[in-house]
């Protein structure tokens, strides 16, 4: 009787003990499904050394799978508990911390086959407690061990093809630059939208009204914003030569800082540094529609004669362009954002489509070295058109080698 009383007193403290012992693989109190029996692990190729791929044959009757991992320097942790019943693979990233050096050694993995829906996880429960809870709802596989392998260079065909493309553009660019230096003329087709930029600046000068330049709403590292900054330099130079005025409306503060330097450089190069006004390069707001409202205010109140929208735009594109239309400004737009192009085409006088945006600065500068880069990308385009034609034929005939050549797995 005394022993029974002692047991009753001890039971609650045993139940609330914090140490949880993981149930050994292959055993569980209420197994209603089989454990995963053929779990395998591989380190993917061309990898950063942080990934491991698990594969198994899905178990009949399984409700879901949970994946648990043990790092060389740690305890078992729950990686995923929501893999659906038909799952037969899982790719794990051993660390999601971009700054962490992953611990060297082998990583242990187990799969818990769950027979039923697990209860919602409480906020204060540890991973070890949750794993123990899940193990009571199914069976645990044997442990497999794997070591992530970091590759020094990507060797996939797709990556090599991309490397060849970049080197091809670079090589052709240098070749045409050399040709230009030797005095051979490089001809490129006229682009009415780019020619209209100078006409628009001339119109603004005649009307005594400013030119409005909007470099999109994306960050400085976006290639369209970079292209827009390069164009702004040429536009500012032309504006200064015409002794007109330019207002630059920016959505991102660092873009404003760069735009300010670029406009200043344009005015200096044109020999009119005194005409440069820093207050005309304006930060409006980093919020999309607040920026849109502010820029609309500039269009409505300061009535620019010419509006130039070059860069990356989203939903504000049509609001800006329609306000400019109502204001009777000449409007020139350019973007590589396919979803916004129809709006610009409908509302603006001239629209630079996709690649034309990236050609503007070279075209406007007239510098043979820059124009040669357009020639280079044109030739690579010819190669792409040929590859598309050959690819269409080979895929129709049942061969996928060309398709695989341009496929880059894992981004």
């Amino acid at each position: 009787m005394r022993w029974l009383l002692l047991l009753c007193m001890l039971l609650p403290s045993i139940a609330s003990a914090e140490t949880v012992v993981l149930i050994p693989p292959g055993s569980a109190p209420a197994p209603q499904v089989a454990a995963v029996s053929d779990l395998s692990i591989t380190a993917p190729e061309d990898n950063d050394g942080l990934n491991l791929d698990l594969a198994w044959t899905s178990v009949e009757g399984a409700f879901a799978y949970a994946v648990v991992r043990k790092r060389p320097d740690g305890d078992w942790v729950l990686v995923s508990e929501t893999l659906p019943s038909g799952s037969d693979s899982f790719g794990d990233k051993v660390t999601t911390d971009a700054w962490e050096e992953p611990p060297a050694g082998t990583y242990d993995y187990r799969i818990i086959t769950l027979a039923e829906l697990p209860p919602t996880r409480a906020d204060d429960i540890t991973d070890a407690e949750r794993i123990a809870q899940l193990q009571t709802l199914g069976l645990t596989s044997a442990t497999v061990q794997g070591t992530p392998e970091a590759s020094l260079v990507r060797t996939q065909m797709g990556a090599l093809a991309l490397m060849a493309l970049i080197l091809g553009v670079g090589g052709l660019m240098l070749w045409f630059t050399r040709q230009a230096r030797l005095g051979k003329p490089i001809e490129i087709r006229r682009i009415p939208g780019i020619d209209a930029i100078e006409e628009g600046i001339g119109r603004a000068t005649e009307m005594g009204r400013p030119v409005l330049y909007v470099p999109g709403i994306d960050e400085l590292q976006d290639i369209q914003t970079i292209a827009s900054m390069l164009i702004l330099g040429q536009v500012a130079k032309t504006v200064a030569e015409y002794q007109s005025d330019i207002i630059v409306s920016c959505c991102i503060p660092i873009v404003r800082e760069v735009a300010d330097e670029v406009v200043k450089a344009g005015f200096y190069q044109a020999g009119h540094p005194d005409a440069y006004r820093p207050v005309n390069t304006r930060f409006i707001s980093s919020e999309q529609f607040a920026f849109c409202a502010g820029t609309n205010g500039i269009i409505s109140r300061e009535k620019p004669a010419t509006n130039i929208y070059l860069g990356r735009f989203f939903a504000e594109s049509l609001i800006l362009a329609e306000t400019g239309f109502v204001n009777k400004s000449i409007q020139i737009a350019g973007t590589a954002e396919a979803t916004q192009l129809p709006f610009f085409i409908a509302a603006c006088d001239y629209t630079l489509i996709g690649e034309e945006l990236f050609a503007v600065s070279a075209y406007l500068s007239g510098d043979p070295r820059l124009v040669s880069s357009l020639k280079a990308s044109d030739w690579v385009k010819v190669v792409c058109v040929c590859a598309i034609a050959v690819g269409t034929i080979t895929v129709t005939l049942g061969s996928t080698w060309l398709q695989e050549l341009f496929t880059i797995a894992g981004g």
Partner: protein
Amino acid sequence: MRSTIPLIITFFVGLFMVGEFFIPHWRYRIWTAELLEWGLILAAGAYMLGLANLIQVNLPKVMKKERDWGYKAVMLVSLVVTLFIGFHDGQHRHDDGAAYKWVFEFVFTPLNATMFALLAFYIASAAFRAFRARNVEATVLLVAACVVMLARVPMGEAIPVIGDYLPRFMNWIMDVPNIAARRAIFIGAALGAVATGLRVILGLERSHLGAD
């Protein structure tokens, strides 16, 4: 020298960042993440300059009571009030009942939605101009747009005889000519982006380096 050092930095940093795609090793990614972090810090610092620019542009116009000075005064007062309550509420600014959250939910969000809602009217006016059958191309655009719009609403399918064919025709328009045009734009833009990137990395483009 003022432009040579930035050109050298651009060349090496540009190559280094391009290398991230071809060198997947985690240690390389830590270095590139470090560089990107520097970029983020610079961008965050630029917000202070943006704030200074806002005041520099707008405050003199309010002080001199220039044309439309009232709008600028509203903007500056809003800026100061939002900043003040943001700093006052500190880390609790997103909590229920916080003044900052109230401003965000009941002032900023409705104003934002109002601007977005204007888009509906602008789409109507732009579509009216774009869909006028002035020439063959505009007529093709008009017919294609009518087919797509009709097929996307229940009324389209209810049209006798052609109602059954409209969704199929719409799918063909969206999947064949539309996708073909979009892919052409993407390929051209990607090549243009590569050429622009190389021009900057190789130092052929210099207008972004500012004034000497």
